[in-house]
């Protein structure tokens, strides 16, 4: 996983609530067996017209936001399915940090596993950041993970909460599976006790 310590860039404002994973990446992109190249499908039905041309009104098609690093979104971002393709598509497009008042649980987990940072801030702060993001390419946001701070274009600083373990993995770009496999003895011990206590746990065949 790619580490993330600091990030500075433009933030695309997406002031919609309940942006679901079908909107982030629709089903026609789920047939891939690879993780790569999904950026082209990001927000497909809002981003493209029916004839496949770009919809000029959609935020990510506007010149100022074509290379956005941040997305500022309405409440309950990423609700719906477990498809990690949603995180892959955002990351492939170039968005490494999404800021909202809340995220769905599964999307939240998926994003961090892909080196993305999701930041939860109160609704009034989101409303304010959303306004600042509207200023486009001159409005630079930055985030510092170590100090857990977002700095808005107007210089205001906003602290955010994050679990220590997630922060540690993201700062160092750690492979969680490798970390877990180091605990092999512990897992084996757990399995032994569980199978002694509950012999029914093994599926009949």
């Amino acid at each position, binding site marked *: 996983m790619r580490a993330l310590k600091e990030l500075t860039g433009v933030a695309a404002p997406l*002031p*919609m*609530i*309940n942006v*679901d994973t*079908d*909107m982030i990446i*629709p*089903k026609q992109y*789920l*047939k*891939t*067996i*690879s*993780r790569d190249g999904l950026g082209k499908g990001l927000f497909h*039905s809002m981003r493209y017209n029916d004839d496949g041309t770009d919809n000029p009104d959609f935020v990510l098609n506007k010149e100022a936001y074509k290379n956005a690093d941040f997305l500022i979104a*309405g*409440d*309950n971002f990423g*609700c*719906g*399915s*477990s*498809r*990690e393709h949603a*995180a892959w598509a955002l990351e492939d497009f170039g968005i490494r940090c999404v800021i909202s008042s*809340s*995220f*769905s*649980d*599964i999307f939240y*987990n*998926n994003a961090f*596993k*892909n080196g993305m940072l999701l930041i939860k801030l109160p609704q009034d702060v989101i409303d304010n950041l959303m306004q600042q993001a509207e200023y486009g390419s001159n409005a630079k946001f930055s985030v510092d993970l170590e100090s857990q701070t977002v700095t808005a274009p107007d210089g205001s600083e906003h602290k955010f909460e994050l*679990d*220590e*373990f*997630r922060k540690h993995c993201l700062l160092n770009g750690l492979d*969680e*599976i*490798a970390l*877990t*496999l180091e*605990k092999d003895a*512990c*897992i084996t011990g*757990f*399995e032994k006790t*569980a199978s002694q206590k*509950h*012999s*029914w*746990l*093994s*599926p*009949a*065949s």
Partner: protein
Amino acid sequence: MAAQTLYDKIWDAHVVSTEPDGTCLIYIDRHLVHEVTSAQAFSGLRHNNRQVRRPELTLAVVDHNIPTSDRSKGINDPESKLQVDTLRTNTDEFGVEYYDEQDVRQGIVHIIGPEQGFTLPGTTVVCGDSHTATHGAFGALAHGIGTSEVEHVLASQTLLQNKSKNMQVLVKGKLPDGVTAKDLTLAIIAKTGTAGGTGHVIEYRGEAISDLSIEGRMTLCNMAIEGGARAGLVAPDEKTFAYLKGRPKAPRGKDWDEAVEYWKTLKTDEGAHFDLTVEIDASSIAPIVTWGTSPEDALPITDTVPDPKSFKDEHKQTAAQRSLDYMGLTAGTSLSDIEIDKVFIGSCTNGRIEDLRAVAKVVEGKKIAENVSAMVVPGSGLVKKQAEEEGIADILKSAGFDWREPGCSMCLGMNPDRLKPQERCASTSNRNFEGRQGHGGRTHLMSPAMAAAAAVTGKLTDVRTIVNS
């Protein structure tokens, strides 16, 4: 020991280790896999030279991409075919049991787990699919995971998790006649909102929940995720044990007795703490349909399409207006005046035998309306077989329903079953998001009985007016 909730008990029994910040490594007892969210996980294992730790705890099935028409000719769409072929190669290589499209046990992943007795009370169940919440109907802690987590589970049989908060939904009283588990679950989401359960595991409790059949409890828990919850739970009881007994992968003999002994302890202790409680009076619930593009946009069929201005929150007003535009609806229209083009009976929410019986009961001796085309997609090969044996298939076919092979089908339209732009569908599935059933398609969620009533009249209809007449 302090009084514990059902969730606390299952959680505690599965903690392998704890990080200093409280993040836990949780043991996973059952893992279900389908073709859409697993390919990248298996290739990750291969890339890192890793094995599946306990292949016997994973069960794989094809469901999302599979055609529901005659399968003898194979899959036409090359991308779907590649994804399905990849699942076969992966399960062969890593030694995981796989039900392919020719197997009578094949079906939607959340239907076959319980059907085979793979899902059991007190276990942890995961799957790369958000509707894994379904399995909570058995008192299993079950939730959807992403593909990186699928890989993590395959490699280590564990998952890194932070414990969620405890929420209870207390459903007092009895559901009126003609009102089903689907109406109940939609009523709950209408009340809590789609983010109401975020960060929580819901335990459904109360008389109306005990009264539900096991299949009804699956419908209920299936949509816990639509309320934002990580998982839904119902404490196991005698109905649960009776449902599981004798299923192929359920414990047998002495193991069965010991299991039941343990399962009986799986209930919330008197006085246990819930961080959040929502109370609902079952007797006040009417048959429900959705009018918008979020499952929380749900109202009794006797109501009208709401005015976006009637919502207090400005963000909600914008969302409601967008929904009405997308759905092609005008505020103030009676829900029961909305004409439909399609009916879809199926999905992991309502693709089980009781659902098909409910449809048959409404349409028996009737014909579907001329303006409607309707399809039934059984949730599994075994459901299909049973429905054929019970004569349900014949009733549905003579009413004019198209009788299909099992799979996810038009619940999300990854296979050829899709709505055309602006087609309006009465659907027993779980999501009415924009484009969910096909680009531009308009979905109204409802119970199987309500979808059957809509099929017969050609518009959204209160099923109680049909059955009672």
